[in-house]
């Protein structure tokens, strides 16, 4: 006899129970984070209250990264992308409340997550967190599946839709310039110091210093300190972050749930191998029984 239907169902229920149980408990770091930022992590701090929306950072970004200006929105006259796209790794957007009483600029680019969902998605590790915790892209191991786009909670990584031989496009914190001892181009050109480059730990301290010095000026939170497991780009603003396109994702890293499910089912690849052995044994035994039955039938 093979597995009975009841046994099969029971196994399924047990497996799902185990899956649920593990999603409840995960080990945390000393500071409460599930995953710690690398010790050499660098990043940016963007202060929306200081930004004047001049967009010099956008021009500098395109120049530093050999990207053509996206002029599709202005009939070819000036750089005017509506969102991050295949020509735009960095953008300044304007938020205005419907009644026009409050407004804020907001800079968007890769957040360089402490635990990036794109890197968890990427099949061959084309997207990886490398030196300084920068999430980098290596086209040599990218098949163009775009699972990273499905995964990125900040809608950052983009695909070269217009090309027959496309790549993915995302901010890599100007790591080619960091190798030359310079920082990201956007931080270098910012005339007001709205975006600054540095070690994540230093930037975090600076952000908290500003919050403490001017509590009336800010929403009392450093976005990116804990959000989605923490990001290496940090934000200060005077308007609810969700309105600026930075939703409250809680402090769980995005890949945590799927990692727990997968690690439970596939830990050490024991379960699949055991299941294969069991299936092979059952199939072989059933076949032997069939052959015996056939031999008996054939006997006169």
């Amino acid at each position, binding site marked *: 006899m093979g597995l009975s239907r009841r046994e099969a169902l029971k196994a399924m229920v047990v497996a799902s129970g185990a899956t649920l149980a593990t999603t409840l408990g995960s080990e945390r770091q000393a500071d409460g984070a599930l995953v710690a930022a690398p010790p050499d992590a660098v990043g940016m701090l963007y202060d929306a209250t200081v930004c004047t929306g001049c967009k010099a950072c956008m021009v500098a970004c395109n120049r530093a990264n050999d990207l053509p200006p996206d002029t599709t929105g202005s009939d070819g006259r000036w750089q005017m992308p509506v969102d991050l796209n295949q020509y735009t790794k960095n953008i300044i957007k304007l938020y205005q409340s419907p009644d026009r009483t409050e407004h804020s600029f907001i800079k968007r680019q890769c957040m360089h997550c402490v635990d990036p969902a794109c890197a968890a*998605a990427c*099949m061959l590790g084309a997207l990886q967190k490398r030196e300084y915790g920068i999430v980098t892209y290596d086209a040599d191991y990218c098949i163009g599946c775009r699972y990273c786009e499905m995964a990125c909670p900040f809608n950052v990584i983009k695909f070269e839709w217009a090309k027959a031989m496309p790549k993915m496009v995302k901010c890599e914190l100007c790591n080619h310039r960091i190798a030359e001892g310079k920082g990201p181009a956007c931080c270098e050109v910012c005339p007001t110091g709205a975006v600054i480059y540095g070690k994540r730990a230093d930037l975090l301290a600076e952000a908290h210093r500003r919050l403490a010095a001017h509590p009336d000026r800010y929403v009392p939170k450093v976005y990116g300190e804990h959000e989605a497991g923490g990001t290496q780009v940090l934000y200060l603003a005077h308007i609810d972050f969700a309105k600026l396109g930075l939703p409250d994702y809680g402090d769980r890293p995005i890949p945590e749930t799927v990692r727990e499910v997968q690690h439970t089912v596939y830990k050490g690849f024991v379960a699949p191998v055991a299941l294969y052995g069991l299936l092979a044994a059952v199939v072989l035994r059933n076949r032997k029984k069939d052959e015996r039955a056939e031999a008996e039938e054939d006997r006169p």
Partner: protein
Amino acid sequence: MSAHSQPQPLGGVVFTRPVQILTGFAALAFVLIAWRFLVGLGASTALNDGYPWGLWIAFDVVTGTALGCGGYAVALLVYVLNRGRFHPLVRPAMVTSAFGYSIAGLSVVIDVGRPWLAWKLPLFWHWNLNSVLLEVALCIMTYTVVLWIELSPAFLERAQTSTIPVIRRIGDTFLPVIRRILPWFIALGILLPTMHQSALGSLLLLSGPRLHPLWNTALLPLLFLISCVAMGYGAVVIEGALSSLFLGRKPETEMLAGLGRTVFPLLAVYLGLRLLDLVVRGQLAALFAFNLHSVMSLLELGLFTAAMLLLASDSQRHDLGNLFRAAMVLVVAGALYRFDVFLVAFRPGAHWSYFPNVTEILITAGLVAGEMAGYIVLVKVFPILAGQPRPATAH
């Protein structure tokens, strides 16, 4: 000989008018595929940075392989639960599965942006073991090969009856070898779908925060697994009913009714888990909010329930017409669930929208047409279908 009747080639004219028309659609699809590679995905599809996955992933890959679970579902029944009486269903189910999976594989090659690097997938030292998609890709590639190996006895048996001595010798030499090692592939053919069909559900767990809470649950892999087995049986019932209608076979009502009996508890468990999950996660109110997401969820649950009710009694299951309707409803329900998870529940932001364009639809339709033509040709030339032709009086 055993109680199973032996599969036989149907014979007859192969390139009938329907096969010609289907082949025409497939040919058009291949022209469009060539165009897609020439101009890129932006110019040829409606895909965009908000919805990077569209019809080809949601239908060809995710729904197509679930419909291709007939082989998996029947193999579970015959080889694991040892219900030998379903044996005649194995080969036709394997054919549908082999085509379904091959087309899913082809669709992936069309969908990915850099397919010329796909050869790097087996380079295990580059594997990101956290990537669910890697698991799906490797499993589906391997399983497609396994399916054709599982089907190879049909081709080798045909080779044995060839008039060309070399081909006859190939059949005579390899058939016993394949028969001996087949159980190892059958076991693999059950393990792999169990892994990747559940993993297809896990894929969207990574989109977690942007997935509508009605669908965003750690149970996604389990729900995908249960529903794919049910859809597999549904596909076998549909295929059995259609081949009795169009290929002049006597319908295997008794056997198909048996499948209906197996599907019933699966649907009950699936529906129970969905509702229980919504209750536990406190999403019942969202289910009855009567917005787009609530209506789509209710529609899915309604279709699954309808399929289950159509299969509730023995007399319902022995009515071939009713059985066919139940299977159709079930397959649509499973397809809708997959479309909902991959496209409707996925919310990249208000300013993004996606609806497949004509090219995407024609390529998908052409590939399905090619699959149908391939099935007809295969069952006419190779020993796939068992059972008897319909008596002449039935006309």
